């Protein structure tokens, strides 16, 4: 089956309210953002996930995809629907931490498995961890921690750091400081959704900063980078992968060139699984895969690997199978820490231009076999 | 002679360069109908608005029932017993005639109770309904009690205006053209009705219908360009040279 028709079938099934239940297929409910702001991330997540399902033969997973419109209450409603009327076994796909916080605790409390393709807030990694909740992407702090480690290793001594004033933003700066550990030249919280950073750039100019770390997901990052590039300031900029991902990079343009960012994946990681993923994704969709696509792809493969060794009806066995993480991750080595979050390498990437397309190349490793600081708080 | 119920002293109000009221002083005594007449644009509506509280005068004072009310809002003056009818009907057009009359009754009661009740039926039999119905009966609208106000003729709306004023059991009426839009017969009935009403409370009457004015008024004030040029009995006004000049353009 060609993937497009497969997607169409999955969608029709989802929309018609009655998914096709093939024998032995595991029923997966994917809640992700397909409309409104941020839809690009959800679309990539879905496409990566569906690609893996297709490559595995297409009949093992029975996938219901629904759009959460990036609204927590819609996400909760969809989760209710998938659990109550679609009778799914597994939930996955949520991009945003606040939506995950709305859906995950209730879903796991009802005995369902949740595999995170992206969002992994600290609240679900520490005291709020759950044996049925697995984050296949990272723990939210990881990329910021890696950036902190990179800044320290690169010998910068006065970074200026900024993030939006909301929990993920606060976690970000905390994560950065955790592994950087040195002196800051400034620390600023911006408004969520802010589009003009002239004031912050002026503050940076007036400070004695020798580098900049920022976490500004989505359109905020695009705005910041464009305005920074135009300011004449030439301090090195470091950030987590989100503002430099494949989907968003084309809108930033030259302003992003040379920027260092941290990511647990890149398309040039040298392993057979990754090479196949990048090739198949381009063949199927005609564009380069993004981090979100890679995370979706890995999540589906993890799920498929668990199905090979256990049946979902035996929850304990299935959980153990998931936890063994016996699959070929596009990231190379991959294992779960005690709190079901990944232990993995986190890379340093640089934005480059390949022909007409802006993309990243790996220039180093920031952290090796990195887990997260919440492991000890988690009592399962 | 008893003290006047309503007194204005030196009311002055300008809109930009236009002086709508200029040093207007008049009074309304118990038991009388005091008519204010004047050509269009003389400032009659502005005067009423200042008396009733819709407009603040630039200078001058209004006192009512022995109190200085210049700085009181409309509703406080109403609670003191000042009842007004509007030239352009200000009724709740989507509501029935009875509902409009009940509103007045409610206002009169609200003077004591503060806020109207949240529960209970406004139109159920009781004080409110009795007050409203008797006012409607007096103006001859009782059989239209259930009619939606917007379906009334202009004349009937005037009657309803008067009925709402009646429900307040006021100490003085301020009536802005209560005969407007009425036919001859309607005017005559209204004239007869107002004639009897003066014993209940005095009326400050602004009216264009000169037959009615001359039939009713104990005293007349003539307002021209915001200024009262004469006050007196009907005969005195008829004979007044300035009035003749203002109305007829005759040289004195």
């Amino acid at each position, binding site marked *: 089956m060609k993937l497009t028709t497969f997607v169409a079938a999955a969608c029709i099934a989802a929309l018609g309210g009655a998914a096709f239940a093939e024998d032995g297929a595991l029923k997966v409910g994917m809640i992700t953002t397909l*409309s*409104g*702001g941020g*839809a*690009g991330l959800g*679309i990539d997540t879905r496409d990566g996930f569906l690609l893996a399902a297709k490559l595995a033969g297409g009949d093992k997973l029975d996938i219901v995809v629904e759009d959460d419109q990036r609204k927590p209450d819609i996400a909760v409603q969809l989760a209710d629907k998938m659990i109550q009327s679609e009778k799914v076994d597994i939930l996955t796909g949520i991009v945003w931490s606040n939506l995950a916080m709305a859906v995950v605790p209730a879903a796991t409390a009802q005995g369902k498995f949740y595999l995170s393709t992206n969002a992994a807030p600290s609240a679900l990694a520490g005291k709020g961890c759950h044996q049925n909740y697995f984050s296949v992407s990272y723990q939210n702090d990881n990329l910021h921690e890696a950036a902190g480690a990179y800044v320290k290793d690169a010998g910068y001594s006065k970074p200026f750091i900024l993030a939006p*004033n909301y929990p993920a933003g*606060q976690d970000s700066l905390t994560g950065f400081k955790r592994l950087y550990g040195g002196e800051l030249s400034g*620390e*600023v*919280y*911006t*408004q969520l*959704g802010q*589009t*003009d950073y*002239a*004031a912050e750039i*002026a*503050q940076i*100019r*007036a400070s004695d900063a020798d580098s900049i770390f920022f976490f500004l997901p*989505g*359109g*905020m990052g*695009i*705005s910041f980078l*464009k*305005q920074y590039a*135009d*300011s*004449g300031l030439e301090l090195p900029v470091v950030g987590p992968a989100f503002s430099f991902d494949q*989907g*968003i990079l*084309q*809108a*930033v*343009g*030259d*302003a992003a060139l040379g920027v260092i960012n941290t990511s647990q994946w890149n398309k040039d990681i040298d392993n057979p699984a990754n090479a196949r993923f990048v090739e198949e994704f381009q063949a199927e969709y005609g564009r380069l895969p993004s981090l979100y696509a890679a995370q979706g792809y890995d999540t589906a493969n993890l799920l498929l690997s668990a199905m090979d060794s256990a049946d979902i009806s035996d929850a304990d066995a299935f959980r153990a199978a998931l936890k063994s993480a016996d699959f070929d991750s596009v990231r190379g080595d991959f294992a779960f820490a005690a709190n079901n979050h990944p232990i993995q390498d986190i890379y340093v990437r640089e934005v480059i231009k390949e022909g007409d397309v802006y993309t990243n190349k790996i220039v180093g490793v920031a952290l090796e076999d990195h887990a997260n600081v919440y492991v000890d708080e988690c009592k399962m | 002679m008893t003290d006047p119920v309503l007194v204005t002293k030196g009311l002055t109000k300008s809109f930009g360069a236009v002086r709508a009221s200029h040093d207007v002083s008049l009074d309304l005594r118990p038991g009388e109908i005091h008519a204010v007449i004047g050509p269009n644009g003389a400032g009659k509506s502005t005067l009423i608005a200042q008396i009733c509280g819709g407009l603040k005068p630039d200078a001058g004072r209004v006192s009512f029932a022995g109190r200085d009310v210049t700085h009181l809002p409309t509703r406080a003056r109403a609670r003191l017993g000042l009842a007004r009818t509007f030239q352009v009907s200000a009724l709740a057009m989507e509501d029935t005639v009875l509902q409009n009359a009940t509103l007045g009754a409610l206002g009169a009661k609200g003077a004591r109770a503060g806020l109207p009740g949240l529960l209970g039926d406004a139109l159920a039999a009781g004080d409110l309904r009795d007050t409203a119905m008797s006012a409607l009966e007096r103006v001859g609208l009782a059989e239209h009690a259930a009619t939606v106000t917007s379906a009334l003729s202009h004349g009937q709306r005037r009657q309803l205006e008067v009925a709402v004023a009646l429900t307040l059991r006021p100490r003085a009426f301020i009536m802005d053209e209560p005969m407007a839009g009425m036919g001859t017969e309607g005017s005559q009935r209204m004239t007869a009705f107002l004639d009897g009403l003066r014993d209940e409370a005095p009326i400050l009457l602004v009216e264009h219908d000169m037959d009615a004015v001359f039939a009713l008024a104990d005293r007349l004030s003539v307002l021209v360009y915001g200024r009262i040029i004469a006050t007196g009995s009907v005969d005195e006004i008829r004979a007044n040279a300035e009035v003749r000049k203002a109305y007829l353009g005759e040289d004195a």
Partner: protein
Amino acid sequence: MTPLLFIEQVLNGLQFGVMLFLMAAGLTLVFGVMGLINLAHGSLYMVGAFAAAAVAGWSGSFLLALVAALAASAAAGAIVELTVIRRLYDRDHLDQVLATFALILIFSEGTRWLFGSFPLFLDIPDWLSGPVTLPGGIEYPLYRLAIIAVGLSIATGLFWLIARTRLGIRIRAGESDREMIAALGVDISRLYTIVFALGAALAGLAGAMVGAIQSVQVGMGEPVLILAFVVIVIGGIGSIKGALVGALLVGLTDTLGGLLLPEAFKLFMETSDATATGSALASMLIYILMAVVLVWRPRGLFGGAT
């Protein structure tokens, strides 16, 4: 904080204010002349930005992109006025709010349908990029100076248009007495279409100019729309002068508030708490400003009695 930083921030506030003015001018004109409250004004801003990004991507010329933004948003404005808006003039504000809310839905998702879910690319042209050194040694981006210049000249142009031209006389007449100018033989419905398209074009221009330094994406118009409403309400609805004063006030309050409040809190709080609290308060500041202005002057700073 150094005086230089402060001056730079004032310039930033000014630039932000000028952008808001372009948005607010159309809104306030449309309200003043037609009595219409238009929530879809932000969508016209978005149309301008998307048109500019599309044309810049195709032609490579920024000026051509600006022209396209003006044309596209004016056209979108005119079409919307002819098909929907003109049915709303004699409706109450409630209907207007609802109908234009519906237009937002149509514009936003329609744009996403056409252009996809990813942000578009629009960049500053080379001849406007980079900083210039101002007297006193302030390095300031040339492009932002250009925005200030364009905004202020458009403000001047608007004042001239309203005060001196035939169209302006009609607009002013339309504000005070609709029946009168209709009776004088002015084609009132054409006047309305022109005013609406003019307001739309200004919004589109703002969208295109801002798009070059921000992100061109669906939904970019709504935050700006809300700010523009704050501006015209503070200034007094219907007053162009009020819109200008309100825009600068909001621009400066927002920019300087974000800078000064955290600093102020640092005087008596721990640094990170001060930053968080200060930022929280700063994000509410312009709404507090608006509420204070309205409580003090219920019709805004320059609002007449309507």
